[in-house]
Every structure is written in structure tokens, then in C-alpha cells.
């Protein structure tokens, strides 16, 4: 019987033939935490009586959510994590390195890996063909110690995307469109497996954006085949040897098939306060925006900054719309400086933040005021997400964000491209 991508990866790791519904124990190639989930993980690791991780190279701690630290409590959490890493021989990525999921993509994940992280957007690595999923601190503490975890092999939804995207429409619009149509629980417990000619020719950057938001439909993973596009990306990261092709079998069994005509997708925006509350950018014209935020594990990559820079080049932000931009990693920041994007942003009136999660989760660097609205390239717009339950968050592509930064109201980027 043919296998889906999820069944293929999990079969390999559990060393038996597994199919949807099976309960398995699988080895993990990477288990990680970040600075807001790591301290609890460390405490649970110690409460369980564990002394050292099964494999320090596969045990990673990222400081990215609150970096540089905004207060002494979080600084103390950082001390706890640095000390754990030192004591146990685990790997640590400190302040300024970037968002965990971007560093995983650039430096750590291999196609066919099983990855768990104490962060729901761990699914991002599915863009490179890894079975990567978010879990809580207890699960990751146990995976640190035992080098394995248990899974229920998920059923898969096959999402086939075909046709060329219109100018001004990007991977972000595809995933917002999908979540808008299936709902925030439309794929709960399931694998969203993406294919079709739009996906075949899509860059890894775009695939990571889509995989990143699989969780916003409730999915356990968002999976892409590893192909020549993946190979080229890994070569660019000086990791060509980490490549292996992986694809689903043609006779694999899916519980649902969704087809998307990419040519019909328009620039899409999620309205407050749920990601599935979508509209087209055009329909939201007239919605005034006080803050534009470009960055995060969803859309803080070089391609995203390039699109934003092409729109902001020679322009100024609207006087009542502040713009904050956080590249997703140190590597991207350096490339963006080299390409001149950072200068473009600063000249357009943007504030540049260090690589990290920045304003995304509301603990610093761009907290919204009462009644304010933000157009963000992040993945979540829940009430209170950006630090204030009386604020409003709209989600869109970097192009929509840049076009909005100039006009001060939600703007379809096709108006300025």
C-alpha cells in the first residue's frame, strides 16, 4: 500500500511500515525549545530525574522570543537556559542569531527528519520535507532525555495547487486563502500535504511560509516533497550533502483532496481575531493601520524583504503608520544589508529590529496601544496576541504590508506594483 509523506517519514524513523492511525515510537533527529517554553522544559527534565540529553548535538535551545531581553525575569530565564546548555553539552543559539524555525531551516533540518520543538510553528521545517511538529515542554523534556517520542500517525489531506500566481500574490496569500476556506480547525490532527505545479516551482522560502501556517488550520504537520528546489536551497546553505529526495507514493491514501486554482487567488488578509477570518486586501481598503510589522518565521526571509523593499524603494511611510522590520535571522540581515534593502527601509522611515520574533507575540518591540490596528506578516492575530487585548491585528503578505505602509490603510499591493 502506498504511503503519504507523513507515513513515509515516520515509517523510516520507527523502522516499521506505519499508516494513518498507528501509534508509534520514533527517534527524533532534533528536539528544541525557545526561551519562553525552555525554562519549563528544563524544570521538567530535572523533575523527572534526567541528568543529560540522549544526544547533545540533537538538543537545541534558542533564545529568540524575548531577545534582547526586555526585563529581568526573562533575563533570568535566559541565564537558566544558557546554564543548562553549558552543563549538558546541548547547543544554544543566543541573542541576535534569529528565529528558531529559520535557523532550523538554514542550518539543522534534513529532508526526512523527525523534529519536535516546544513551539507550535515547528511545522515550518515541513517545507523541507521533515516531519516537524510542535509539542509542549513535558514532551520535549522527555525527547531530550530519551531521544524519541510517541506519535499517532496522522491522516493526510492532499492540497494540490495549480497555475501561476498573479503579480502581487504570494505563498502567504495561498495559505491564508486555504485557512480561510477550511477553517482554523479544518485540518486538526492531520497532515496537510502540498503538491501541484505551483508548489513544484515555488522557492523554499515560499514553502516554509506555507508549512509555517499549517498549524493555523490545526494541522500536525505541513509537508512538502524534497525535490531539486530543496536540493538547490541546501547547496546554498552549504549543506548539499544533507539532501535526499522524498516524495509520496502515487497510490497513497488521503482522507481528503483540496484543489486550489492559484491563478484565482488575490492578495488575502486575515481580520481580527482569528486567522480563518479572511477577506481580500481590496475589500479592506479604508481600514486604517497604525503599525506595519514585517518579519517573523512566517515572512522574515530575504525574498520577503526583497518584495517589501521593491515597493518601499524611494517612498516614505504614511506619517501616521509606523513600520517595524525584523529579519528572521542574522544571515538574512547580512544579506539584506548587502542587497541594500535595509537602507531602503530606513530611508522609507522604518525601524529595524534585531533578528528574532520581535513584535509577533506581544512581549516587546512593538506592543500595540488601545484601539490600534497592525498589519503584520506574522501567522497569528488572536485577541491579545501583540500585547493588548484591545488592539486589532490583520495578517497579510510582505507586499500587502509594504503597500499598506505607504498608504496608511490596508492596500492591495497590485495598486503599487
Amino acid at each position: 500500500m502506498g504511503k503519504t509523506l507523513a507515513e513515509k517519514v515516520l515509517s523510516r524513523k520507527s523502522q516499521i511500515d506505519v499508516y494513518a492511525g498507528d501509534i508509534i515510537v520514533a527517534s527524533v533527529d532534533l528536539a528544541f525549545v525557545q526561551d519562553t517554553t525552555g525554562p519549563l522544559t528544563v524544570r521538567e527534565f530535572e523533575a523527572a530525574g534526567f541528568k543529560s540529553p540522549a544526544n547533545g548535538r540533537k538538543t537545541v535551545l534558542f533564545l529568540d522570543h524575548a531577545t534582547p531581553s526586555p526585563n529581568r525575569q526573562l533575563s533570568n530565564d535566559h541565564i537558566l537556559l544558557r546554564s543548562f546548555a553549558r552543563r549538558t553539552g546541548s547547543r544554544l543559539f543566543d541573542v541576535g542569531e534569529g528565529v528558531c524555525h529559520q535557523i532550523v531551516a538554514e542550518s539543522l533540518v534534513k529532508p526526512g527528519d523527525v523534529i519536535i520543538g516546544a513551539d507550535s510553528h515547528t511545522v515550518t521545517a515541513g517545507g523541507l520535507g521533515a516531519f516537524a511538529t510542535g509539542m509542549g515542554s513535558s514532551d520535549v523534556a522527555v525527547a531530550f532525555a530519551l531521544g524519541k517520542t510517541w506519535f499517532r500517525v496522522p491522516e493526510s489531506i492532499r492540497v494540490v495547487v495549480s497555475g501561476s500566481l498573479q503579480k502581487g500574490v504570494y505563498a502567504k496569500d495561498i495559505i491564508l486563502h486555504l485557512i480561510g476556506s477550511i477553517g482554523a480547525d479544518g485540518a486538526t490532527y492531520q497532515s496537510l500535504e502540498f503538491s501541484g505545479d505551483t508548489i513544484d516551482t515555488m522557492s523554499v522560502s515560499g514553502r516554509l511560509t506555507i508549512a509555517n501556517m499549517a498549524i493555523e488550520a490545526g494541522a500536525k504537520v505541513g509537508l512538502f516533497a524534497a525535490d531539486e528546489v530543496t536540493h538547490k536551497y541546501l547547496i546554498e546553505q552549504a549543506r548539499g550533502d544533507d539532501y535526499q529526495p522524498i516524495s509520496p507514493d502515487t497510490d497513497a491514501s488521503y482522507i481528503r483532496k483540496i484543489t486550489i486554482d492559484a491563478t484565482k487567488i488575490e492578495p488575502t488578509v486575515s481580520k481580527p481575531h482569528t486567522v480563518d477570518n479572511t477577506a481580500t486586501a481590496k475589500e479592506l481598503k479604508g481600514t486604517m493601520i497604525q503599525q506595519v510589522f514585517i518579519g517573523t518565521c512566517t515572512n522574515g526571509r530575504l525574498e520577503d524583504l526583497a518584495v517589501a523593499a521593491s515597493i518601499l524603494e524611494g517612498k516614505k511611510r504614511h506619517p501616521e503608520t509606523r513600520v517595524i522590520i525584523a529579519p528572521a535571522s542574522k544571515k538574512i540581515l547580512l544579506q539584506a544589508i548587502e542587497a541594500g534593502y535595509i537602507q531602503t527601509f530606513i530611508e522609507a522611515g522604518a525601524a529595524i529590529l534585531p533578528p528574532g520574533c520581535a513584535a509577533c507575540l506581544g512581549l516587546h518591540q512593538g506592543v500595540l496601544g488601545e484601539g490600534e490596528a497592525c498589519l503584520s506578516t506574522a501567522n497569528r492575530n488572536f485577541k491579545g496576541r501583540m500585547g493588548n487585548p484591545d488592539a486589532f491585528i490583520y495578517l497579510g503578505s510582505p507586499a500587502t504590508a509594504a503597500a499598506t505602509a505607504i498608504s496608511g490603510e490596508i492596500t492591495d499591493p497590485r495598486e503599487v506594483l
Partner: protein
Amino acid sequence: MLKGRAFKFGDSISTDHIVPGRLAHLRSNLPELAKHVLEDADPTFASRVKTGDFIVAGNNFGLGSSREHAPLVIKMAGISAILVKSVARIFFRNAINLGLPVLVCDTDKINDGDELEVDLEQGIISDKTNGNQLTFKKIPKAMLSILDEGGLIPYIKKHGDFKL
């Protein structure tokens, strides 16, 4: 037998409603963090909830973040079980890992403030206020074995490995 009052919530209660990111600095001070439980959904909840009470909610409860602090502060508030129409995947696994039952049932039949009795063994929820009896979906066997030990850490301490 679990006994307590129902605290009713709607659909799509996210982990940001339960324990928002702006309180990340309190995550190493759990008693302080727990005072804010569900603050953005109902600011009066923390002061009204008593040991044994139930959260009763609609669809996709706990969507969003992997933060285990969300079920943890709910457990610390004394909630004995969460009754929902449906639950987000990571939240479900985290709650079970902490020994906190999440039961999937038709919560439309329960009103805010109802007195409930939940028999985990028999799989029956009795609403003492309106006389309704409800059944809940069986918790998968693998998760039940973790729940029965009081959570994942006690489970691993006892068994040393996954014996699912």
C-alpha cells in the same frame, strides 16, 4: 467522581486568551502567572473559580501556541476537567501530559453555572442542574495510559520509557 460548577466559554479560546505572551516574564513564577488564567476571555474567572470546577467550551479550545503553561495554569486554578466540543491538538496532548482530562462532548447542553458530576470511568457527565446526562468521546488508549499515571513525567519516572 469529579464534582464542580461549569464555567462556560465560547468557540476558539486560544492559548493567548488563557495565558498571553505579554505575561511571558511570569512563566518562571507560576503562582503569579496562574492569577491571570483566562484573563483575556473572562477577567473575573480567576477570582471566581473553585477547586473541582469545570471549564466548558465550544470548538477548537486551546488553539495556537505549544505553551504548556496554558493547561498548567488551568490545572493550578483547580479545574478538574475541561469539557469541549473539540480541542486543538497540542493543547490536548499538553493537558493529558499534565494529568488534566479534556473530554469531548456536546457542551451546548450545559449552561454556565450548572452543577456537574463527571464519572471518568463510566464516561458519563451528569448535569445536576438541568438533569441532562451526556457521554464523552473515549480518550485514546495511549493517552489514557499517560493520564492514568498523572501525566507524562510521572509516567516516564515509573516506566522509564514509552510502553504504549
